[in-house]
């Protein structure tokens, strides 16, 4: 099977999953009483006064079968309802808040992968010796750390050492710059926009606020990569080509870096898809702790205040995001390792 054929087949395979996911979410929605469910159909603030009419118009107290087509149609039209927490249509609020979250991921993802791979290799090469025990302890601690607890510890430590509490996306003084007329928004990411606008003070301030959330997300997600890299590296180190490389007198570092690590990296690609999911989950907590105005914080507030439209919209969106990222990972994997396409 060629790569193109594989990609087409994979894309066809996710269609029933997406349909199933939509049905699952619809089933979850059915658990909610019609009165609150009506918020899912609200388009403008004015509609909020006519919830009774909405219940009637969309047959919300009729049987689920009658409701499904109606619900699906308005999802496809891009109407995810009205979020009370965000005071706006779900989709608009969500898209306004994504840049903040993407900014954290943009820094956290590469750091997670780089540190994870380095520590994993160290751990495998020194198996059952002190460096291995220390790295494994770090990795296991990363698995076990509640992200909110780590966040609170970091917040306290920064206060004790610097005397300030750093929360939010930017400082108050910078908020005025960002909201002013002179500021041009290109991507919504303050670091990139700051460079384009030539305001490096904004960039610096944004970076300062990003540091703590990025540290939390990196520490917690690194653990999985360390573990996988370690076992994959251990396996690679027993392969015949390693013995050959050693036998022909290559230096140990060269054997590890050129021969073993490169081959051990392949399975690590697969975890990248899972990392997206755990990062999204982690971001809900982390953004809440640091009052970072991203999607995660909004979703957490929606959950606490029982804002149904917000929670459902966020869940559908993250599910879609996760499916697509897994698709990309699978295609990448098939590209790297041709054996997968045959499966």
């Amino acid at each position, binding site marked *: 099977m060629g790569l193109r054929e594989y990609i087409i087949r994979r894309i066809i395979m996710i269609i*029933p*999953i997406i349909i*199933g*996911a939509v*049905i*699952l*979410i619809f089933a*979850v929605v059915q*658990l*909610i*009483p019609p009165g609150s469910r009506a918020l899912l159909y609200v388009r403008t603030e004015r509609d909020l006064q006519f919830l009774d009419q909405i219940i009637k118009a969309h047959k919300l107290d009729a049987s689920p079968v009658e409701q499904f087509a109606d619900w699906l149609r308005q999802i496809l039209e891009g109407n995810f309802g009205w979020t009370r927490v965000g005071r706006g249509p779900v989709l608009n609020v969500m898209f306004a808040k994504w840049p903040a979250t993407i900014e954290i991921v943009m820094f956290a993802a590469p750091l997670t992968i780089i540190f994870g791979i380095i520590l994993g290799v160290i751990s495998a090469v020194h198996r059952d010796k002190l460096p291995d*025990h220390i790295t*494994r*302890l770090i990795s*296991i*601690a990363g*698995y*076990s*750390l*509640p*992200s*909110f*607890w780590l966040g*609170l*510890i970091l*917040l*306290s430590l920064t*206060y*004790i050492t610097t005397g300030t*509490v750093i*929360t939010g996306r930017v400082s108050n003084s910078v908020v005025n710059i960002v909201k002013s007329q002179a500021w041009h928004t290109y991507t919504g990411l303050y670091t990139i926009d700051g460079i384009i606008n030539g305001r490096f003070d904004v960039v610096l301030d944004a970076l300062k606020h990003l540091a703590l959330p990025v540290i939390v997300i990196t520490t917690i997600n690194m653990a999985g990569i360390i*573990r996988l890299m370690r*076992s994959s590296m*251990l*396996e690679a180190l*027993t392969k015949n080509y390693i013995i050959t490389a050693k036998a022909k007198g290559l230096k140990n570092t060269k054997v590890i870096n050129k021969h073993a690590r490169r081959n051990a990296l392949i399975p690590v690609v697969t975890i990248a898809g899972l990392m997206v*999911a755990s990062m*999204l*989950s982690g971001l*809900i*907590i982390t953004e*809440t*702790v640091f*009052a970072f105005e991203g999607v995660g914080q909004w*979703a*957490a507030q*929606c*959950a*606490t205040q*029982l804002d*149904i439209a917000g*929670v*459902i919209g*966020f*869940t559908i969106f*993250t*599910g879609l995001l*996760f*499916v697509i990222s*897994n698709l990309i990972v699978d295609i990448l994997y098939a590209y790297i390792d041709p054996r997968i396409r045959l499966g």
Partner: protein
Amino acid sequence: MFSLRERIQKWKKAHEVSIKELKFILFRIRKSPLSLLGTFIIAFYIIIAILAPILAPPQPSWDIFKNPNPFIIPDAYNSVDPTPPSPQHPFGITVEGYDIYYGCIWGTITAFRVGVMVVALSLIIGLAVGIIAGYYGGLVDEILMRFTDIIICFPGLILAMAFVVALPPALTLDAPTILIPITVVIALITLLQFLKRTSKRFANISLAITLVLAVVSALIMFGIVPKINVVQMPLTRLDKVLIALILVGWPGYARVIRGEVLRARSEDYVEAAKAIGASDSRIIFKHIVPNTIYPILILASLDIGSIVLTAAALSFLGIGAEPSYADWGQLVQKCEPYMLGVDIVRYWYIWLIPGAFIFIFGLGWNLLGDAIRDVLDPTLRRR
């Protein structure tokens, strides 16, 4: 009749491989300092959980009539601000007057309860689905596995959050909602029995059951027999968390178990059992399950740590147990009003101590799990 000793001998002989495996695992645990540490941590928590009524006596005294629920943290100590640790309240008091020490000690039992219940119930569902999918294969496998795919395509915490928010305060199931899915499942099984033509008798019985159930549900649907609410169960907030975590957790186990069953199905001993005419249920329960389940059981039990961590995250978001319930995440959540200011340092005891309980609990399970995963992984063991 066998004497007791002979019976033990016989049992030992029958389970020789499992016993050897267990001994090897114990040997590896003894050899690795980290997993030994993990074992000690878990033992420590178990002791705290057992001794909870002595370590933190409920007030007023634990009496089924006066104080039926010792998990509610006493909040008799009215205070406006949180109070730092003192000899009477070793871990301090939160703003609403909840004793942190009491919450931490009784929270240990909550943690075990959440972890054990979620793992056990997800495992039962996962086992049923995984075995059916793996053993029958074909269309059944396809349908069941696509269903797990759907749940797995959401990040766990996020789907759990949606479930918790959507679940109603009381679970009411009327007769059709229970009967119709059961009818569909039994009808599917009947169809399979006829297609496979293995045992005619069993197929006829299940066909009869399907017809009876279908008639009964039809009668209720058309209003001939009045609708009866079969189950009416109030859901506490902790129940909702448990249900959400189980609904999110089972597909993972179903997948692993299906894989194992698929592998076992092509083994010689299953072929042999089929050849001598053993029934499906006999092959599944006598041959496949005993040969596949033990490693999965061990691995699943180690998930208790991560499940407690997820439950704590939900509590921290404010959608966990009731505010007064002894639950670690709930206690950390009590620092929320101070989170954005310098008070977070002044009231350190509210979040640092319960958070440490969560962290060390997770650490214990993961330390142990890391070693056992290595042992159970055939590509890495014995090197």
